[in-house]
C-alpha cells in the first residue's frame, strides 16, 4: 500500500472502525486522548527543560509567572489527563475481558473520559490565561493567595480538577458495579465472596492454611489476580479523589469569598494539618494507585505473554492486601523536613512503613521475572520489551525514593531535583509508561480487531529513545539535585547548565519517541480510522470475548 493510502485508511486497510463494539471504541477514545495529553505534557516538559538552561528562551521569556504556571499544569496534564485516562481506559476494557461480564455502563465510561478531558483542559486554561500557579501540592494558604494570583484563575483551576475527580469517581463506580454484578461466571457468588477475593484476603487465607497443613480456603478465587489489583487500586483512587475534592472545596470557599469582597482568615486552617491531609490523599496516587496498578499490570502481562499461571499467586494476592495497609500509612515521608511534624510519625510512617514499599514492589518484580523465566524461551516481542523496560524503571525509581525517605538524606535532598528526577520522572516515564506501552501492545489486536502495526522499526526506535531518554533525563536531573539544584526554582545564571543541557537532550529524545509512536499509530489506523473511533458505535456490545447470550 502507498504512504497516502496508509495515512488515510491505515496500514494495509486493516483497521475498520465500524467493526468495533461500544467497549472497544470507548477504550480507544480514552487511549487516544491520553496519548495526546502525554504529548502536551512532553512539550511542557521540554519548555521547562529549555528554560532551565536559558530562562529567556520563548515562550517562558524569563517570566517566573509563566514558568511556574507551566509547572503547575504539567502534572495535571501528565498524571490526570494522560496517565489516569490511559489506565482507566485500559481497565474499563480489561475488567469485562477478565471477568467475562459486560461493563456496567458504556455511557458512564464515555462520561469518564469526557469529564477528565474537559477538566484537564479547564485547569490548563486557568494557568495559561491567568498564570494561576500554586503547583500541584497546593500548600495552604498559597492556592488562596489572591495577592499573587487572580481568584478567577483559581476558581477555574479548581473546577477543572473537580471535574477530573468526578470523572474518577465515575470510573470507580463503573468498576465496582461490574466486578460485583452477579451475572455470568459470578451468578452464584455472594458479595462477601467477591469482597474477600477483591481485597486479596483469600490469598492470605490460602497461605495460612498451607502453613498449617490444611486444605486451601479457595482453590479457584472468585476474581483473577489482575482484577484484584484493579479493585485494590481503586480503593486508593477513591480515597485520593475524596481528599483532593475536599481540598478543592476549601480553596473554592476562600476564593469565592474573596471575589464577593469577603476576606476570610487563611490562618483559620492549620497549614501543617492541611499538609498531612493533602499528602495522605496525594500519596495514595503515588504509593497506592501506581504501585498496585503497576503490580497488577505486570502480573497480567506476565501471564498473557507466557500463557502460563502466575508464579506464587497466593503470595501476590496477599502482597496486594499488605500494600493496601502500607499505602495508607506512608505519607509522612513527604514531611520529613517539616519540623512541626511529630518525630514518631517521621520515624514510623515516614521511614519504617515506607521501607515496606521496597518489599511489596520487590516482590512484584520477583514474581513477574520468575513467571517469565519459567516459560522461556520466549520471543522478544514489543510487549515483552516494554515490560522489561517497566521493570527497570521501577527497579531504579523505588529505591531512589526509599533512599530519600530517610531523615539523614531528606535533610539535604528534600525539594531538590533528585526527588523529581531520579524518583518521580523515572517511575512515571520509564516504570509506569513502559508498563502501559506493554499493555497497549498486548491489547492492540483485541481493541482494534487485529489492525496491522505500520512499522516495527518505528516501534523499536520509540522503545529505545523512550528508555534511554527517560533514564537519562531522570539521572541528570538527579545528579543536579545532589549538587543542590532545587526542583521548584528558576535559575537565571546557568548554575547547573552542565546537567540541564544533558537532561534537555534526553528530554528531546522522549519527545521524539512520542512523535514516532504517534506517527506509527496514525499510519496504522489511518486518519479515517482515528476520526471513526470518536463516531458512535453501531454495535452496542459492552463486553469482549464472550457470547452475547452468556453476557
Amino acid at each position, binding site marked *: 500500500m502507498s504512504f497516502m493510502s496508509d495515512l488515510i485508511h491505515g496500514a494495509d486497510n486493516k483497521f475498520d472502525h465500524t467493526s468495533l463494539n461500544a467497549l472497544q471504541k470507548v477504550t480507544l477514545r480514552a487511549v487516544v486522548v491520553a496519548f495526546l495529553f502525554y504529548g502536551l505534557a512532553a512539550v511542557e516538559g521540554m519548555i521547562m527543560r529549555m528554560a532551565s538552561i536559558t530562562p529567556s528562551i520563548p515562550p517562558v521569556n524569563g517570566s*517566573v*509567572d509563566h*514558568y*511556574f504556571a507551566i509547572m503547575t499544569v504539567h502534572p495535571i496534564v501528565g498524571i490526570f489527563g494522560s496517565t489516569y485516562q490511559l489506565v482507566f481506559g485500559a481497565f474499563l476494557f480489561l475488567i469485562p475481558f477478565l471477568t467475562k461480564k459486560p461493563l456496567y455502563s458504556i455511557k458512564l465510561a464515555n462520561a469518564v473520559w469526557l469529564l477528565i478531558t474537559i477538566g484537564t483542559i479547564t485547569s490548563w486554561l486557568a494557568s495559561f490565561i491567568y498564570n494561576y*500557579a*500554586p503547583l500541584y*501540592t497546593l500548600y495552604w*494558604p*498559597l492556592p488562596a*493567595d489572591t495577592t*499573587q494570583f487572580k481568584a478567577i484563575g483559581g476558581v477555574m483551576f479548581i473546577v477543572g480538577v473537580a471535574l477530573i475527580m468526578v470523572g474518577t469517581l465515575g470510573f470507580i463506580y463503573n468498576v465496582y458495579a461490574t466486578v460485583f454484578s452477579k451475572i455470568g461466571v459470578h451468578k452464584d457468588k455472594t458479595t462477601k465472596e467477591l469482597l474477600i477475593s477483591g481485597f486479596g484476603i483469600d490469598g492470605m487465607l490460602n497461605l495460612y492454611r498451607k502453613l498449617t497443613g490444611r486444605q486451601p480456603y479457595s482453590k479457584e478465587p472468585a476474581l483473577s489476580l489482575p482484577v484484584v489489583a484493579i479493585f485494590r487500586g481503586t480503593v486508593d483512587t477513591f480515597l485520593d479523589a475524596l481528599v483532593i475534592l475536599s481540598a478543592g472545596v476549601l480553596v473554592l470557599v476562600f476564593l469565592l469569598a474573596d471575589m464577593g469582597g469577603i476576606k476570610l482568615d487563611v490562618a483559620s486552617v*492549620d*497549614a*501543617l494539618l492541611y*499538609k498531612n491531609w493533602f499528602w495522605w490523599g496525594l500519596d495514595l496516587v503515588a504509593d497506592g494507585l501506581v504501585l498496585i496498578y503497576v503490580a497488577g499490570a505486570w502480573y497480567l502481562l506476565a501471564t498473557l505473554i507466557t500463557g502460563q499461571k502466575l508464579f*506464587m499467586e497466593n503470595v501476590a494476592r496477599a502482597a496486594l492486601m499488605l500494600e493496601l495497609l502500607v499505602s495508607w500509612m506512608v505519607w509522612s515521608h513527604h514531611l520529613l*523536613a*517539616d*519540623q*512541626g511534624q511529630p*518525630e514518631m510519625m517521621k*520515624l514510623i510512617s515516614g521511614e519504617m512503613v515506607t*521501607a515496606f514499599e*521496597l*518489599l511489596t514492589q*520487590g516482590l512484584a518484580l*520477583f514474581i513477574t521475572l520468575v513467571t*517469565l523465566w519459567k516459560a*522461556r*524461551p*520466549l*520471543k*522478544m516481542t514489543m510487549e515483552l*520489551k516494554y515490560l*522489561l523496560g517497566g*521493570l*527497570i524503571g521501577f527497579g*531504579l525509581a523505588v*529505591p*531512589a525514593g*526509599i*533512599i530519600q525517605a*530517610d*531523615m*539523614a538524606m531528606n*535533610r*539535604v*535532598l528534600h*525539594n531538590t531535583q533528585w526527588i523529581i528526577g*531520579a524518583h518521580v520522572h523515572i517511575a512515571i516515564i520509564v516504570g509506569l509508561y513502559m508498563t502501559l506501552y506493554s499493555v497497549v501492545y498486548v491489547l492492540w489486536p483485541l481493541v482494534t480487531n487485529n489492525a496491522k502495526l505500520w512499522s516495527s522499526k518505528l516501534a523499536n526506535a520509540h522503545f529505545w529513545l523512550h528508555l534511554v531518554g527517560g533514564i537519562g533525563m531522570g539521572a541528570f536531573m538527579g*545528579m543536579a539535585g*545532589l*549538587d*543542590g539544584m*532545587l526542583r*521548584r*526554582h*528558576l535559575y537565571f545564571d546557568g*548554575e547547573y547548565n*552542565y546537567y540541564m543541557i544533558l537532561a534537555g537532550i534526553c528530554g528531546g529524545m522522549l519527545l521524539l519517541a512520542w512523535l514516532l509512536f504517534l506517527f506509527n499509530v496514525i499510519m496504522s489506523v489511518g486518519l479515517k480510522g482515528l476520526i471513526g473511533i470518536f463516531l458512535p458505535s453501531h454495535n452496542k456490545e459492552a463486553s469482549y470475548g464472550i457470547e452475547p447470550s452468556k453476557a
Partner: protein
Amino acid sequence: MTFLNSLELLAFHNVAYSIYSALIIAVIAWFGYNLTRTEVAKPLVRIPFYGFIAFLVVAGVGHHIFTYNVVPWVAEDIMRSQIKPDKTYKVVVAQHKFQLPSEKLVLNCGEKVLFDVESKDLVYGFGLFRKNKTMVTQMQVNPGSKNTLLWTFHDDGVFDLMSTEYSGPRGNNMIVKDIIEVRDCKDKIAMNGGSK
C-alpha cells in the same frame, strides 16, 4: 565511618546508587537476553526466595539504622528539644522576605546553632547553601507551626540563605547572600566544589 557534612554523604550516596543502578539494569538485561535462549542459563549466584525477601527488609530498614549511626544531624534533630544550643537565631519570614537578627551571623566551628524560624503568611523553606550552590541543610517553614533546626557546622565557609520551598512566583528571589560565616575549623571543605 562518619559523614560530617552533606558533601561527604552525597558523594558516598552518588557512588553507591550508581553501582546499584548499573547492577539492576544489567540484571534485567541479562534476564531479557536469556529469556529468548533455548539453552538453560547458568546464573552467577542463586538467591533463594526468602533470602531475597530478607535482603529487601534489611536494605529497607537497615539503611535508616546505618544513616542514624553515621550521620550526626539525625540524632541531633530528633533530640533537639533536649539539647541546649550554643546560639539561637530567631528568623521571621513574611511577604517573601527573610527578617534576620543581623546582616551576618558569625559562628565558631562546632557550635550548635538553633534556627527558630517563623512564617507570618505562606509555607517557605529555610535552606543554607555553599557558594558553589550545594546544599548544607534545610527545613520547611510552615505558618502556625514551630520550625526549629539545630545544626552544627564542621567546616569553615560563607553560606547563602535561600527559600527551599515554593511560595509562589515571588518566592523565586528569596536569596540572602553571605548570611552565615563559620570560622576556625581545620577543614575548609565547605568552600570546595561538590561534584561540579
